[in-house]
């Protein structure tokens, strides 16, 4: 009986020892596999707050650039049959990083193009709805708050609004208000009459 108890105790000790050898503690001298380093690759996108280089890399060189007075404007994809139409008219502002970021842009179809435009694709990431104006829909995005200084977020009357605020307004077809022809997205709020 005594012998069996001793054997059992020895077996238990052996089992415990085996267990500890296969589960190294963080402080043990066992060499750990190197953890893969996560490198965030920047993916260019046509959204509010993006660096202007994103637009250039996707759309090509601008057809025209207006110097900053007070806003620098980039024009992309002109309509070959109408010099007054561009697919993209882009206004840039200085970000917290000192670089040019998209603070406002217009996308609109040329006359005769029949596609239906989806304005939700140009919103900043992590945007939450924050109300409506007569013209459009307001959102707040922490991402935009990280990109632009607080003073960049104003309404049409230059009154400050909550940092991170932006608005999306759809342009509609003249004969068919259900047909979205373009989008206007801007940081801040756009409050006008008329």
């Amino acid at each position, binding site marked *: 009986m005594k012998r069996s108890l001793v054997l059992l105790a020895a077996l238990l000790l052996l089992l415990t020892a085996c267990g500890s050898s296969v589960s190294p503690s963080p402080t043990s001298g066992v060499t750990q596999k190197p953890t893969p380093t996560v490198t965030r690759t920047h993916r260019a996108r046509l959204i509010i707050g993006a660096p202007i280089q994103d637009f250039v890399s996707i759309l090509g060189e601008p057809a025209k650039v*207006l110097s900053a*007075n007070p*806003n620098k404007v980039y024009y992309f994809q002109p309509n070959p049959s109408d010099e*007054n139409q561009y697919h993209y008219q882009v*206004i840039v502002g200085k970000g917290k990083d000192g670089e040019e970021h998209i603070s406002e842009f217009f996308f609109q179809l040329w006359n005769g193009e029949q596609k239906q435009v989806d304005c939700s694709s140009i919103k900043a990431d992590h945007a939450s709805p924050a109300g409506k104006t007569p*013209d459009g829909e307001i959102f707040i995005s922490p991402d935009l708050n990280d990109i632009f200084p607080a003073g960049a977020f104003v309404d*049409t009357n230059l009154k400050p609004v909550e940092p991170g605020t932006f608005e999306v307004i759809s342009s509609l077809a003249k004969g068919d208000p259900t047909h979205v022809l373009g989008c206007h997205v801007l940081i801040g709020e756009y409050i006008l009459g008329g």
Partner: protein
Amino acid sequence: MQRIRMFLFSTALLVSLFGMTAFTGLSVASAHTTQPSHPQVTCSGNGCDGLNPAMTGCSADAYTVQTAVFSDSFVELRYSPTCGTNWGRVTSKVGATFLIISIQRIDGLTYTFSGGNFNYAYVAMVYAPQVAARACGGVNSISGCTAYV
């Protein structure tokens, strides 16, 4: 005989009650279906030419059709589906200043507004549901125009 009278009276009462309910139901339904879906406006057709979009009520359901962007302003071609009218709106990007805005119907009918110390301004309307129109404007002078739409 009294039973018959009672029966007739009850039937008449039921019919009249049912009729009232039906009428009330009908009037509620018709009230719902006749609610105006368009804003109240005080002009129509060519009678809107030269009139103020806000004062006539036409701007209540208006939207932007096309925009031209400049360094210090942008110009929008506005449209009212209720009135079938276009007009132009200019917005300053440099604070309150002198603004100029015009609407041009492709057949030549044109209206222009200019004035000082505004953040935005708009011009009178042209009736143009089927014909193209464009808006031109800017700060201090006309910077450019939208396309004809």
